[in-house]
Protein backbone atom coordinates (compact mmCIF):
# COMPACT_ATOMS: atom_id res chain seq x y z
CA UNK A 1 0.00 0.00 0.00
CA UNK A 2 2.84 2.34 0.91
CA UNK A 3 4.60 1.64 -2.38
CA UNK A 4 1.44 2.43 -4.33
CA UNK A 5 0.91 5.64 -2.35
CA UNK A 6 4.53 6.76 -2.81
CA UNK A 7 4.50 6.02 -6.54
CA UNK A 8 1.26 7.92 -6.96
CA UNK A 9 2.61 10.82 -4.93
CA UNK A 10 5.83 10.95 -6.94
CA UNK A 11 3.98 10.79 -10.26
CA UNK A 12 1.45 13.42 -9.11
CA UNK A 13 4.10 15.86 -7.96
CA UNK A 14 5.71 15.70 -11.41
CA UNK A 15 2.45 16.80 -12.99
CA UNK A 16 2.59 20.58 -13.47
CA UNK A 17 -1.19 20.70 -13.93
CA UNK A 18 -1.52 19.78 -10.28
CA UNK A 19 0.34 22.88 -9.12
CA UNK A 20 -1.66 25.07 -11.50
CA UNK A 21 -5.08 23.76 -10.49
CA UNK A 22 -4.53 23.31 -6.79
CA UNK A 23 -2.40 26.35 -6.03
CA UNK A 24 -1.94 28.87 -8.87
CA UNK A 25 -5.60 29.26 -9.88
CA UNK A 26 -6.98 29.65 -6.32
CA UNK A 27 -4.23 32.17 -5.49
CA UNK A 28 -5.06 34.15 -8.63
CA UNK A 29 -8.75 34.16 -7.76
CA UNK A 30 -7.94 35.21 -4.20
CA UNK A 31 -5.78 38.08 -5.45
CA UNK A 32 -8.36 39.29 -7.98
CA UNK A 33 -11.63 38.77 -6.14
CA UNK A 34 -10.76 39.58 -2.53
CA UNK A 35 -10.67 43.32 -3.04
CA UNK A 36 -13.21 43.42 -5.87
CA UNK A 37 -15.86 41.61 -3.85
CA UNK A 38 -14.78 42.88 -0.43
CA UNK A 39 -18.26 44.13 0.62
CA UNK A 40 -19.91 40.73 0.29
CA UNK A 41 -17.56 38.99 2.71
CA UNK A 42 -18.56 38.94 6.37
CA UNK A 43 -14.99 39.35 7.71
CA UNK A 44 -13.13 42.65 8.10
CA UNK A 45 -10.20 41.21 6.18
CA UNK A 46 -11.70 39.78 2.94
CA UNK A 47 -8.82 37.32 2.68
CA UNK A 48 -10.04 35.76 5.90
CA UNK A 49 -13.00 34.52 3.77
CA UNK A 50 -11.47 34.11 0.32
CA UNK A 51 -8.41 32.11 1.37
CA UNK A 52 -10.38 29.27 3.00
CA UNK A 53 -13.14 29.66 0.40
CA UNK A 54 -10.96 29.07 -2.65
CA UNK A 55 -8.69 26.63 -0.81
CA UNK A 56 -11.75 24.48 -0.05
CA UNK A 57 -13.21 24.90 -3.52
CA UNK A 58 -10.03 23.71 -5.22
CA UNK A 59 -9.37 21.00 -2.62
CA UNK A 60 -12.33 19.21 -4.14
CA UNK A 61 -10.41 18.90 -7.39
CA UNK A 62 -8.75 16.14 -5.39
CA UNK A 63 -11.54 13.91 -6.73
CA UNK A 64 -10.34 14.61 -10.28
CA UNK A 65 -6.72 13.86 -9.40
CA UNK A 66 -7.73 10.70 -7.55
CA UNK A 67 -9.71 9.54 -10.58
CA UNK A 68 -6.93 10.57 -12.93
CA UNK A 69 -4.52 8.32 -11.04
CA UNK A 70 -6.62 5.31 -12.02
CA UNK A 71 -7.13 6.50 -15.60
CA UNK A 72 -3.39 6.98 -16.01
CA UNK A 73 -2.67 3.40 -14.95
CA UNK A 74 -5.18 2.27 -17.58
CA UNK A 75 -3.70 4.59 -20.22
CA UNK A 76 -0.13 3.44 -19.50
CA UNK A 77 -1.21 -0.20 -19.59
CA UNK A 78 0.01 -0.74 -16.06
CA UNK A 79 -2.92 -2.69 -14.63
CA UNK A 80 -1.88 -5.84 -16.50
CA UNK A 81 1.51 -5.71 -14.78
CA UNK A 82 0.27 -4.51 -11.38
CA UNK A 83 -2.39 -7.20 -11.17
CA UNK A 84 0.19 -9.86 -11.98
CA UNK A 85 2.39 -8.84 -9.05
CA UNK A 86 2.29 -10.58 -5.69
CA UNK A 87 0.44 -7.64 -4.14
CA UNK A 88 -3.19 -7.56 -3.07
CA UNK A 89 -5.00 -5.39 -5.62
CA UNK A 90 -6.97 -3.57 -2.94
CA UNK A 91 -3.76 -2.44 -1.29
CA UNK A 92 -2.80 -0.86 -4.60
CA UNK A 93 -6.22 0.79 -4.90
CA UNK A 94 -6.06 2.09 -1.34
CA UNK A 95 -2.49 3.32 -1.76
CA UNK A 96 -3.43 5.14 -4.93
CA UNK A 97 -6.44 6.69 -3.21
CA UNK A 98 -4.34 7.91 -0.28
CA UNK A 99 -1.85 9.88 -2.34
CA UNK A 100 -4.32 12.56 -3.54
CA UNK A 101 -5.43 13.01 0.09
CA UNK A 102 -1.82 13.80 0.97
CA UNK A 103 -1.49 16.16 -2.00
CA UNK A 104 -4.70 18.03 -1.13
CA UNK A 105 -3.65 18.25 2.53
CA UNK A 106 -0.40 19.87 1.40
CA UNK A 107 -2.36 22.20 -0.90
CA UNK A 108 -4.65 23.33 1.92
CA UNK A 109 -1.73 23.84 4.31
CA UNK A 110 0.17 25.78 1.64
CA UNK A 111 -2.74 28.09 0.78
CA UNK A 112 -3.63 28.73 4.41
CA UNK A 113 0.04 29.29 5.24
CA UNK A 114 0.44 31.71 2.33
CA UNK A 115 -2.75 33.47 3.41
CA UNK A 116 -1.36 33.92 6.87
CA UNK A 117 2.05 35.05 5.62
CA UNK A 118 0.98 37.31 2.74
CA UNK A 119 -2.46 38.56 3.76
CA UNK A 120 -2.41 38.39 7.54
CA UNK A 121 -5.10 35.72 7.71
CA UNK A 122 -5.62 34.46 11.26
CA UNK A 123 -5.52 30.65 11.27
CA UNK A 124 -6.63 29.73 14.76
CA UNK A 125 -5.47 26.76 16.81
CA UNK A 126 -3.26 24.27 14.94
CA UNK A 127 -4.87 21.03 16.17
CA UNK A 128 -8.48 21.71 15.06
CA UNK A 129 -7.15 23.39 11.91
CA UNK A 130 -5.13 20.29 11.02
CA UNK A 131 -8.06 17.97 11.77
CA UNK A 132 -10.32 20.03 9.55
CA UNK A 133 -7.73 20.23 6.82
CA UNK A 134 -7.34 16.43 6.75
CA UNK A 135 -11.11 15.86 6.85
CA UNK A 136 -11.56 18.30 3.94
CA UNK A 137 -8.86 16.51 1.96
CA UNK A 138 -10.51 13.13 2.56
CA UNK A 139 -13.93 14.48 1.54
CA UNK A 140 -12.47 16.23 -1.50
CA UNK A 141 -10.87 13.06 -2.86
CA UNK A 142 -13.64 10.62 -1.87
CA UNK A 143 -15.61 10.59 -5.14
CA UNK A 144 -12.43 9.85 -7.17
CA UNK A 145 -12.79 6.09 -7.23
CA UNK A 146 -16.38 6.18 -8.46
CA UNK A 147 -15.54 8.84 -11.04
CA UNK A 148 -12.65 6.78 -12.40
CA UNK A 149 -14.89 3.80 -13.00
CA UNK A 150 -17.60 5.84 -14.70
CA UNK A 151 -15.76 8.10 -17.11
CA UNK A 152 -14.30 6.72 -20.30
CA UNK A 153 -11.68 9.39 -20.92
CA UNK A 154 -9.86 12.29 -19.35
CA UNK A 155 -12.07 14.69 -21.31
CA UNK A 156 -15.15 13.19 -19.66
CA UNK A 157 -13.40 13.33 -16.30
CA UNK A 158 -12.56 17.02 -16.77
CA UNK A 159 -16.13 17.86 -17.74
CA UNK A 160 -17.75 15.92 -14.92
CA UNK A 161 -15.31 17.01 -12.22
CA UNK A 162 -15.59 20.68 -13.25
CA UNK A 163 -19.37 20.42 -13.04
CA UNK A 164 -19.24 18.80 -9.62
CA UNK A 165 -16.50 20.97 -8.13
CA UNK A 166 -17.74 24.34 -9.39
CA UNK A 167 -21.39 23.43 -8.82
CA UNK A 168 -20.90 22.23 -5.26
CA UNK A 169 -18.51 25.08 -4.44
CA UNK A 170 -21.03 27.65 -5.68
CA UNK A 171 -23.89 26.15 -3.69
CA UNK A 172 -21.69 25.44 -0.68
CA UNK A 173 -20.62 29.05 -0.27
CA UNK A 174 -16.99 28.73 -1.33
CA UNK A 175 -17.18 31.53 -3.91
CA UNK A 176 -19.92 33.72 -2.48
CA UNK A 177 -20.74 33.23 1.23
CA UNK A 178 -23.73 30.92 1.73
CA UNK A 179 -25.50 33.70 3.66
CA UNK A 180 -25.49 35.80 0.47
CA UNK A 181 -26.99 33.09 -1.72
CA UNK A 182 -30.63 33.31 -2.83
CA UNK A 183 -33.09 31.51 -0.51
CA UNK A 184 -33.41 28.18 -2.31
CA UNK A 185 -29.66 27.84 -2.86
CA UNK A 186 -28.93 28.88 0.73
CA UNK A 187 -31.18 26.06 1.94
CA UNK A 188 -29.28 23.59 -0.27
CA UNK A 189 -25.89 24.75 0.98
CA UNK A 190 -25.73 22.42 4.04
CA UNK A 191 -26.13 19.47 1.69
CA UNK A 192 -22.65 20.10 0.30
CA UNK A 193 -19.41 19.09 2.04
CA UNK A 194 -17.92 22.47 1.07
CA UNK A 195 -20.45 24.21 3.31
CA UNK A 196 -19.33 22.15 6.30
CA UNK A 197 -15.64 22.60 5.53
CA UNK A 198 -16.13 26.38 5.36
CA UNK A 199 -18.24 26.31 8.50
CA UNK A 200 -15.43 24.47 10.25
CA UNK A 201 -12.74 26.86 9.02
CA UNK A 202 -14.92 29.80 10.08
CA UNK A 203 -15.26 28.34 13.57
CA UNK A 204 -11.53 27.67 13.93
CA UNK A 205 -10.14 30.73 12.16
CA UNK A 206 -12.69 33.39 13.14
CA UNK A 207 -14.28 32.14 16.33
CA UNK A 208 -11.28 30.48 17.99
CA UNK A 209 -12.99 27.08 18.13
CA UNK A 210 -11.18 24.04 19.51
CA UNK A 211 -11.51 20.42 18.46
CA UNK A 212 -14.69 19.94 20.52
CA UNK A 213 -16.44 22.79 18.72
CA UNK A 214 -15.86 21.45 15.22
CA UNK A 215 -17.42 18.03 15.76
CA UNK A 216 -20.31 18.74 13.42
CA UNK A 217 -18.19 19.89 10.44
CA UNK A 218 -15.76 17.01 10.96
CA UNK A 219 -18.60 14.51 11.16
CA UNK A 220 -20.25 15.99 8.06
CA UNK A 221 -17.02 15.84 6.01
CA UNK A 222 -16.06 12.34 7.07
CA UNK A 223 -19.69 11.27 6.75
CA UNK A 224 -19.68 12.58 3.19
CA UNK A 225 -16.54 10.56 2.42
CA UNK A 226 -17.94 7.37 3.95
CA UNK A 227 -21.35 7.98 2.39
CA UNK A 228 -19.89 8.51 -1.07
CA UNK A 229 -17.98 5.24 -0.79
CA UNK A 230 -20.96 3.36 0.60
CA UNK A 231 -23.36 4.71 -2.00
CA UNK A 232 -20.97 4.36 -4.88
CA UNK A 233 -19.64 0.94 -3.87
CA UNK A 234 -22.31 -0.83 -5.90
CA UNK A 235 -22.09 1.78 -8.63
CA UNK A 236 -18.32 1.52 -9.02
CA UNK A 237 -17.55 -0.65 -12.00
CA UNK A 238 -14.68 -2.47 -10.32
CA UNK A 239 -13.95 -4.56 -13.38
CA UNK A 240 -13.71 -1.44 -15.53
CA UNK A 241 -11.64 0.36 -12.92
CA UNK A 242 -9.02 -2.37 -12.95
CA UNK A 243 -9.47 -3.46 -16.55
CA UNK A 244 -5.99 -4.20 -17.87
CA UNK A 245 -7.02 -3.46 -21.45
Amino acid at each position, binding site marked *: MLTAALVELRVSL*RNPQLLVVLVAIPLTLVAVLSTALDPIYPTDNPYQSTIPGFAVMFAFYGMAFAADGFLREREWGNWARLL*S*LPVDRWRIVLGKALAPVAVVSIQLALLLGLGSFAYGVHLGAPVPLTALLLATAVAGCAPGLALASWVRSRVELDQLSNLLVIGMASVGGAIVPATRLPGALARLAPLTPQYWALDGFDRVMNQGAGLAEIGAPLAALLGFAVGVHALSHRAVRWHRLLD*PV
Partner: protein
Amino acid sequence: MTPAVATVPRVTRPRVTRGAGLAARGLVAQRGGRAVLHGVSLAAPAGEVTGLVGPNGAGKTTTLEAIAGVCPLREGSIRVFAERPTIGFAPQEAALYPPLTVAENLAVFAAYAGVRRAARAGEVGRALELAGLEGVATRRAGRLSIGQRRRLSLAVATLGSPAVLLFDEPTAGVDPQARHHMIEAIGALAREAGAAVVFSSHRLDEIETVCDTAVIIDHGRVVTEGPVADLRIDDPSLEAAFLRLTGVGLRE
Protein backbone atom coordinates in the same frame (compact mmCIF):
# COMPACT_ATOMS: atom_id res chain seq x y z
CA MET B 1 37.29 -4.47 -38.17
CA THR B 2 35.35 -6.48 -35.64
CA PRO B 3 31.66 -5.62 -35.54
CA ALA B 4 30.32 -4.45 -32.19
CA VAL B 5 28.31 -7.16 -30.55
CA ALA B 6 25.81 -6.40 -27.82
CA THR B 7 26.64 -8.48 -24.80
CA VAL B 8 23.97 -10.02 -22.69
CA PRO B 9 24.92 -10.28 -19.04
CA ARG B 10 25.11 -13.69 -17.52
CA VAL B 11 22.95 -14.16 -14.49
CA THR B 12 24.04 -16.75 -12.00
CA ARG B 13 21.40 -18.67 -10.15
CA PRO B 14 21.03 -22.23 -8.90
CA ARG B 15 20.81 -24.93 -11.54
CA VAL B 16 17.40 -25.91 -12.75
CA THR B 17 15.64 -28.49 -10.61
CA ARG B 18 14.27 -31.43 -12.57
CA GLY B 19 10.51 -31.15 -12.99
CA ALA B 20 10.46 -27.45 -12.17
CA GLY B 21 8.51 -24.98 -14.27
CA LEU B 22 4.97 -24.09 -15.15
CA ALA B 23 1.98 -26.32 -15.82
CA ALA B 24 -1.27 -24.76 -17.00
CA ARG B 25 -4.15 -27.16 -17.54
CA GLY B 26 -7.50 -26.68 -19.27
CA LEU B 27 -7.61 -22.88 -19.10
CA VAL B 28 -11.05 -21.47 -19.87
CA ALA B 29 -11.46 -17.70 -19.84
CA GLN B 30 -13.80 -15.02 -21.09
CA ARG B 31 -13.15 -11.51 -22.26
CA GLY B 32 -15.95 -8.95 -22.53
CA GLY B 33 -18.51 -11.73 -22.05
CA ARG B 34 -17.05 -13.71 -24.98
CA ALA B 35 -15.31 -17.04 -24.47
CA VAL B 36 -11.68 -16.61 -25.54
CA LEU B 37 -9.92 -19.68 -24.19
CA HIS B 38 -11.45 -23.14 -24.52
CA GLY B 39 -9.26 -25.39 -22.43
CA VAL B 40 -5.72 -24.31 -23.24
CA SER B 41 -3.02 -26.45 -21.64
CA LEU B 42 0.61 -25.51 -21.59
CA ALA B 43 3.78 -26.85 -19.97
CA ALA B 44 6.90 -24.72 -19.70
CA PRO B 45 9.88 -26.47 -18.13
CA ALA B 46 12.41 -24.44 -16.15
CA GLY B 47 15.55 -23.62 -18.11
CA GLU B 48 13.70 -23.60 -21.42
CA VAL B 49 11.93 -21.06 -23.60
CA THR B 50 8.43 -22.01 -24.71
CA GLY B 51 7.07 -20.09 -27.68
CA LEU B 52 3.39 -19.20 -27.90
CA VAL B 53 2.34 -18.46 -31.44
CA GLY B 54 -0.96 -17.86 -33.14
CA PRO B 55 -2.81 -15.43 -35.40
CA ASN B 56 -4.27 -12.17 -34.07
CA GLY B 57 -7.12 -12.90 -31.68
CA ALA B 58 -6.08 -16.52 -31.20
CA GLY B 59 -5.88 -16.13 -27.42
CA LYS B 60 -2.14 -15.69 -26.83
CA THR B 61 -2.48 -12.58 -24.69
CA THR B 62 -5.41 -14.00 -22.73
CA THR B 63 -3.43 -17.19 -22.10
CA LEU B 64 -0.50 -15.22 -20.71
CA GLU B 65 -2.77 -12.91 -18.70
CA ALA B 66 -4.63 -15.89 -17.28
CA ILE B 67 -1.36 -17.50 -16.20
CA ALA B 68 -0.21 -14.16 -14.74
CA GLY B 69 -3.42 -13.87 -12.73
CA VAL B 70 -4.61 -10.78 -14.57
CA CYS B 71 -7.51 -12.37 -16.46
CA PRO B 72 -9.83 -14.41 -14.22
CA LEU B 73 -10.19 -18.09 -15.08
CA ARG B 74 -13.55 -19.80 -15.35
CA GLU B 75 -11.92 -23.21 -15.34
CA GLY B 76 -8.47 -24.70 -15.28
CA SER B 77 -5.44 -24.73 -13.03
CA ILE B 78 -2.03 -23.11 -13.01
CA ARG B 79 0.83 -24.58 -11.04
CA VAL B 80 4.37 -23.30 -10.66
CA PHE B 81 6.85 -25.90 -9.50
CA ALA B 82 9.68 -23.97 -7.87
CA GLU B 83 11.12 -23.09 -4.50
CA ARG B 84 9.60 -19.62 -4.87
CA PRO B 85 6.57 -20.03 -7.16
CA THR B 86 6.57 -16.49 -8.52
CA ILE B 87 5.65 -15.20 -11.97
CA GLY B 88 7.05 -12.16 -13.78
CA PHE B 89 4.94 -10.72 -16.59
CA ALA B 90 5.80 -8.22 -19.32
CA PRO B 91 2.49 -7.24 -20.92
CA GLN B 92 2.08 -6.30 -24.55
CA GLU B 93 2.09 -2.60 -23.70
CA ALA B 94 5.28 -1.33 -22.10
CA ALA B 95 3.44 -0.87 -18.76
CA LEU B 96 5.75 1.67 -17.15
CA TYR B 97 5.47 5.01 -15.35
CA PRO B 98 6.48 7.57 -18.02
CA PRO B 99 7.11 10.46 -15.55
CA LEU B 100 9.55 8.32 -13.53
CA THR B 101 13.12 7.63 -14.58
CA VAL B 102 14.29 4.25 -15.78
CA ALA B 103 15.94 3.52 -12.42
CA GLU B 104 12.90 4.74 -10.50
CA ASN B 105 10.62 2.48 -12.54
CA LEU B 106 12.83 -0.48 -11.74
CA ALA B 107 12.98 0.44 -8.04
CA VAL B 108 9.20 0.82 -7.84
CA PHE B 109 8.48 -2.50 -9.50
CA ALA B 110 11.21 -4.17 -7.44
CA ALA B 111 9.36 -2.99 -4.33
CA TYR B 112 6.09 -4.32 -5.73
CA ALA B 113 7.81 -7.62 -6.55
CA GLY B 114 8.81 -7.95 -2.91
CA VAL B 115 12.54 -7.27 -3.28
CA ARG B 116 13.86 -6.17 0.11
CA ARG B 117 14.98 -2.57 0.40
CA ALA B 118 18.61 -3.56 1.05
CA ALA B 119 18.71 -5.68 -2.11
CA ARG B 120 16.85 -3.23 -4.31
CA ALA B 121 19.83 -1.21 -5.59
CA GLY B 122 21.62 -4.39 -6.66
CA GLU B 123 18.49 -5.70 -8.34
CA VAL B 124 18.01 -2.41 -10.20
CA GLY B 125 21.63 -2.53 -11.37
CA ARG B 126 21.23 -6.12 -12.59
CA ALA B 127 18.04 -5.22 -14.46
CA LEU B 128 19.66 -2.15 -16.04
CA GLU B 129 22.49 -4.33 -17.28
CA LEU B 130 20.08 -6.96 -18.60
CA ALA B 131 18.18 -4.29 -20.54
CA GLY B 132 21.36 -2.53 -21.67
CA LEU B 133 20.00 0.71 -20.25
CA GLU B 134 22.79 1.69 -17.85
CA GLY B 135 23.45 4.82 -19.90
CA VAL B 136 19.89 6.12 -19.58
CA ALA B 137 19.13 5.16 -15.97
CA THR B 138 18.24 8.75 -15.08
CA ARG B 139 16.15 9.41 -18.18
CA ARG B 140 12.37 9.48 -17.78
CA ALA B 141 10.71 6.37 -19.20
CA GLY B 142 8.41 8.58 -21.26
CA ARG B 143 11.42 9.87 -23.18
CA LEU B 144 12.77 6.47 -24.16
CA SER B 145 12.55 5.05 -27.67
CA ILE B 146 10.14 2.18 -28.28
CA GLY B 147 13.01 -0.30 -28.23
CA GLN B 148 14.33 1.06 -24.93
CA ARG B 149 10.85 0.96 -23.40
CA ARG B 150 10.44 -2.65 -24.52
CA ARG B 151 13.81 -3.59 -23.02
CA LEU B 152 12.92 -1.85 -19.79
CA SER B 153 9.56 -3.60 -19.68
CA LEU B 154 11.28 -6.95 -20.15
CA ALA B 155 13.77 -6.14 -17.38
CA VAL B 156 10.96 -5.09 -15.02
CA ALA B 157 9.40 -8.54 -15.39
CA THR B 158 12.61 -10.17 -14.17
CA LEU B 159 12.77 -8.20 -10.89
CA GLY B 160 12.84 -10.47 -7.89
CA SER B 161 14.00 -13.36 -10.11
CA PRO B 162 10.61 -15.02 -10.67
CA ALA B 163 10.56 -18.74 -11.41
CA VAL B 164 8.32 -18.17 -14.43
CA LEU B 165 8.67 -15.35 -16.94
CA LEU B 166 5.89 -14.42 -19.35
CA PHE B 167 6.66 -12.10 -22.25
CA ASP B 168 3.79 -10.95 -24.45
CA GLU B 169 5.19 -9.97 -27.86
CA PRO B 170 8.17 -8.25 -26.26
CA THR B 171 9.88 -7.44 -29.56
CA ALA B 172 6.91 -5.83 -31.34
CA GLY B 173 7.94 -2.58 -32.98
CA VAL B 174 11.63 -2.68 -32.10
CA ASP B 175 14.63 -2.44 -34.43
CA PRO B 176 16.79 -5.48 -35.31
CA GLN B 177 19.53 -4.52 -32.83
CA ALA B 178 17.15 -4.24 -29.90
CA ARG B 179 15.38 -7.41 -31.02
CA HIS B 180 18.67 -9.29 -31.13
CA HIS B 181 19.53 -8.05 -27.64
CA MET B 182 16.13 -9.05 -26.28
CA ILE B 183 16.13 -12.48 -27.87
CA GLU B 184 19.60 -13.13 -26.44
CA ALA B 185 18.42 -11.91 -23.03
CA ILE B 186 15.32 -14.13 -23.14
CA GLY B 187 17.47 -17.14 -23.97
CA ALA B 188 19.90 -16.28 -21.14
CA LEU B 189 17.09 -15.89 -18.62
CA ALA B 190 16.02 -19.47 -19.31
CA ARG B 191 19.30 -21.25 -19.97
CA GLU B 192 21.60 -19.40 -17.60
CA ALA B 193 19.24 -18.14 -14.92
CA GLY B 194 17.00 -21.20 -14.98
CA ALA B 195 13.62 -19.52 -15.40
CA ALA B 196 10.71 -21.13 -17.22
CA VAL B 197 10.08 -18.63 -20.00
CA VAL B 198 6.93 -18.37 -22.09
CA PHE B 199 7.27 -15.97 -24.96
CA SER B 200 4.60 -14.98 -27.48
CA SER B 201 5.51 -13.54 -30.85
CA HIS B 202 4.32 -13.15 -34.41
CA ARG B 203 7.91 -13.48 -35.54
CA LEU B 204 8.35 -17.15 -36.25
CA ASP B 205 12.07 -16.64 -36.94
CA GLU B 206 12.39 -15.52 -33.30
CA ILE B 207 10.55 -18.61 -32.15
CA GLU B 208 12.90 -20.78 -34.19
CA THR B 209 15.93 -18.94 -32.84
CA VAL B 210 15.26 -18.94 -29.14
CA CYS B 211 12.50 -21.41 -28.28
CA ASP B 212 13.00 -25.01 -27.30
CA THR B 213 9.35 -25.85 -27.76
CA ALA B 214 6.42 -24.04 -29.32
CA VAL B 215 2.69 -24.08 -28.76
CA ILE B 216 0.52 -23.04 -31.69
CA ILE B 217 -2.81 -21.68 -30.57
CA ASP B 218 -5.85 -20.66 -32.60
CA HIS B 219 -9.45 -19.82 -31.72
CA GLY B 220 -8.61 -20.28 -28.05
CA ARG B 221 -7.41 -23.86 -28.48
CA VAL B 222 -4.00 -25.46 -28.77
CA VAL B 223 -3.59 -26.61 -32.37
CA THR B 224 -0.28 -28.36 -31.85
CA GLU B 225 2.76 -28.26 -29.63
CA GLY B 226 6.19 -29.78 -29.40
CA PRO B 227 9.89 -29.16 -29.98
CA VAL B 228 10.36 -26.49 -32.65
CA ALA B 229 12.36 -28.84 -34.85
CA ASP B 230 9.55 -31.44 -34.75
CA LEU B 231 6.83 -28.91 -35.61
CA ARG B 232 8.43 -28.04 -38.94
CA ILE B 233 9.43 -31.57 -39.82
CA ASP B 234 6.79 -31.88 -42.57
CA ASP B 235 7.22 -28.31 -43.78
CA PRO B 236 10.08 -26.25 -45.18
CA SER B 237 9.85 -23.78 -42.27
CA LEU B 238 7.98 -23.11 -39.05
CA GLU B 239 6.04 -20.40 -40.86
CA ALA B 240 4.90 -22.91 -43.49
CA ALA B 241 3.83 -25.26 -40.71
CA PHE B 242 2.03 -22.43 -38.93
CA LEU B 243 0.09 -21.43 -42.07
CA ARG B 244 -0.79 -25.04 -42.82
CA LEU B 245 -2.18 -25.46 -39.30
CA THR B 246 -3.97 -22.13 -38.90
CA GLY B 247 -4.91 -21.35 -42.51
CA VAL B 248 -4.02 -18.49 -44.81
CA GLY B 249 -7.24 -16.48 -44.39
CA LEU B 250 -6.83 -12.96 -43.03
CA ARG B 251 -7.61 -12.37 -39.35
CA GLU B 252 -8.98 -9.23 -37.68
